[in-house]
């Protein structure tokens, strides 16, 4: 009985589908005919513009740069769809390596290039197709400051991974070439966040991170590659080790660094280590920590809760990082053209103005200027006291009139870079030792 019934139901379903299919075929034929006619009347450009409407670019990056508002604005300005997804460092790197097809535009930190160029995950860009390349700050294009001084090349200075000799190259070029590995998007110089109400004196050196005076109230990032750099800044400042290159330590240097960290941990120096932006904000805001390595917008986030917190300019300089975007290797034809268009749009200023209001710098500051008020540009880039209220991109008040940005003007901060976020040659050994430190 049961079986019989099921059969009938199945048959009924089958007839329904077949009529459905017939109807669908009819409609499709009509539409195709209509499309063909319009195409004939209006000629090729319309076909192009219709095609480009179907293009979709998926950008995946960190929460600080893959922002939906930017994708929405690009979609509006460009006439094709740009979508953003966020992923944390490790998720992003793993996805780039194991599922590159799911990403069109990689939005990555510069040191990822070491992983990706060797694997051929990305597609180098032709310099001549990047309209504002000559306007990009020379940190990235030449490895120098505007006055010709060399930027510290400890760690992965973006310039070192900026060029390749051509498509398919697995090594980086020594100097500028016509092929660019990534377009710099957001970057910044990081230092220690301080709670002035609880640290009642001036903090001027990275060594304060290890100062027993703040025992049980300090913190560093728990991401191994970045945490060890913060630790190295502090250890070198205290005078324990003079590193050859903090960003590319030898095994012996890693051993000594981890030993010092273990000893500090054993003495109860750290309260916790943070892994995410929110964790770092919560640690500071709740007073669990009072001196900790932090990202600039995290400091602002603490302050926006009405809790005093500032970013101390330290005499040893800053630990800098930079992100870039690049088309993935699988893009071709119209999608690749769209990617170039999008990248040129990205550099033209709207995005720069948007992220500047969160405290990040962009590759072409003069383009950013067009999308900021004079007061905003004065505060964020020139180190001038705010004349009015300073608001974030969503309109929330971040600073009251009279406030000055910690660390001052753009070049006062970016001009004092001590090292860059990194991927060491001895990375595998470093991660192993870092795990030892955590287990100690």
């Amino acid at each position, binding site marked *: 009985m049961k*079986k*019989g019934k099921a*059969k*009938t139901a199945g048959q009924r379903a089958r007839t329904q589908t077949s009529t459905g299919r017939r109807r669908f075929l009819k409609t499709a034929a009509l539409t195709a005919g209509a499309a063909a006619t319009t195409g004939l009347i209006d000629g090729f450009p319309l076909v192009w513009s219709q095609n480009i409407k179907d293009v979709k670019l998926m950008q995946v990056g960190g929460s600080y740069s893959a922002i939906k508002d930017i994708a929405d604005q690009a979609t509006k300005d460009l006439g094709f769809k740009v979508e953003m997804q966020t992923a944390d*460092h*490790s998720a992003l*790197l*793993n996805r780039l*390596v194991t599922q590159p097809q799911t990403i069109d535009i990689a939005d990555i930190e510069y040191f990822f290039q*070491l*992983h990706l160029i*060797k*694997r051929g995950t990305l597609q180098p860009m032709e310099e001549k197709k990047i309209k504002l390349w000559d306007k990009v700050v020379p940190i990235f294009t030449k490895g120098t400051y505007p006055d010709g001084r060399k930027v510290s090349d400890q760690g992965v200075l973006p310039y070192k991974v900026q060029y390749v000799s051509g498509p398919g190259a697995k090594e980086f070029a020594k100097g500028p070439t016509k092929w660019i590995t990534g377009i710099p998007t957001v970057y910044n110089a990081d230092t220690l966040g301080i709670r002035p109400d609880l640290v009642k004196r001036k903090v001027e050196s990275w060594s304060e991170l290890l100062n027993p005076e703040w025992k*049980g109230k300090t*913190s560093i990032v*728990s*991401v*191994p*590659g970045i945490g060890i750099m913060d630790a190295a800044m502090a250890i070198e400042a205290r005078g324990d080790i003079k590193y050859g290159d903090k960003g590319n330590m030898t095994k012996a240097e890693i051993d000594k660094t981890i030993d010092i960290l273990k000893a500090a*941990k054993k003495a109860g120096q*750290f*309260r*916790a*280590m*943070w*892994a995410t932006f929110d964790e770092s904000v*919560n640690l500071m805001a*709740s*007073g*669990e920590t009072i001196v900790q390595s932090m990202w600039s917008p995290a400091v602002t986030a603490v302050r926006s809760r009405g809790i005093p917190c500032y970013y101390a300019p330290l005499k040893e300089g800053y630990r800098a990082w930079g992100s870039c975007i690049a088309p993935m290797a699988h893009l071709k034809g119209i999608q690749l053209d769209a990617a170039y268009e999008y990248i040129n749009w990205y550099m033209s200023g709207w995005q720069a103005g948007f992220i500047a209001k969160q405290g990040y710098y962009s590759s072409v500051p003069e383009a950013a200027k067009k999308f900021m008020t004079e007061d905003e540009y004065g505060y964020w880039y020139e180190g001038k006291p705010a004349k009015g209220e300073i608001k974030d991109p969503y309109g929330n008040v971040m600073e009251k009139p009279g406030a000055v940005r910690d660390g001052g003007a753009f070049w006062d901060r970016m001009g004092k870079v001590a090292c860059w976020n990194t*991927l060491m*040659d*001895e*990375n*595998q050994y470093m*991660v*192993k030792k*870092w*795990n*030892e430190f*955590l*287990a*100690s």
Partner: protein
Amino acid sequence: MQSPDRTRGARPVKVSPTLTSYLQIGPLLLVLLLFFGIPLLVVIAYSFFQFDGLDSVPAFDFVNYIDVLTSGVTLSLYLKTLYYAVVVWAITLLIGFTVAYFLAFHVQSLIWQMALFLLCTVPFWTSNIIRMISWIPFLGRNGIFNNALIGAGITQQPLEFLLFSDFAVIIAYVHLFTLFMIVPIFNAMARIDKALIEAARDGGASGWRIIWDIVVPLSKTGIALGSIFVVTLVMGDFFVVKVMSGSQSASIAMAMSNQIAMVQYPPAAASAVILLIVVSLMVAAILRVVDVRKEIAG
């Protein structure tokens, strides 16, 4: 596809009992193969790959295993993880047994029994992560608990060990995993014939003796199942230990997650295989003490 008349007329097809069994386990077997067997084979294959610091190269090399097994950090990670597993197991067992005993033997009405049992699951109505993270503001230096202690004049200084410590990790584990102990133990106890206990009481046995000589042996299956849940959950966890210790402590899984973050797949795969072997041995040991199959069948 058969036509309806043919099925209606046909005699039932004879299927051998063996085939029936295979057909019955077929779907589960398929799911296990697809989502467990094949990925596991991939992990095992990867564990023999060579890793040059950036990329994984297909090979058949024991170097990843030698690295893991000769590294001092492996032993300390295992000791630390085992420490968490044993402490959490002991506490959850104590609480789980007590709660299950209360539900099974002290609550007389079936409705109340079920109501209280459901009450135990209330925490599970919110996500694991939220339940864990809510401990942070509670246990923090300026948290609710410390403020209460100071307010009540019990301590002068906030207690620092409450958060970002082993204590915090264990509290979170116990909170998250106790139910996995309660359910199987309660289930086992509910099958115990009440007459047996009455008889023991009539025979003059003390409460403790009843528990020790009747309830514990007869709930062994539940205890074993609960123990397997708790031990395997703790052994494979990295999130709780990371958040609650403030990354100040580590577990095996956390070390693996650090390796995976840097796409160091072959060494991570080797650690994973070793962890799998260790956990399997632990489960086998538990099952050796209690023959779950026999207990359930009996």
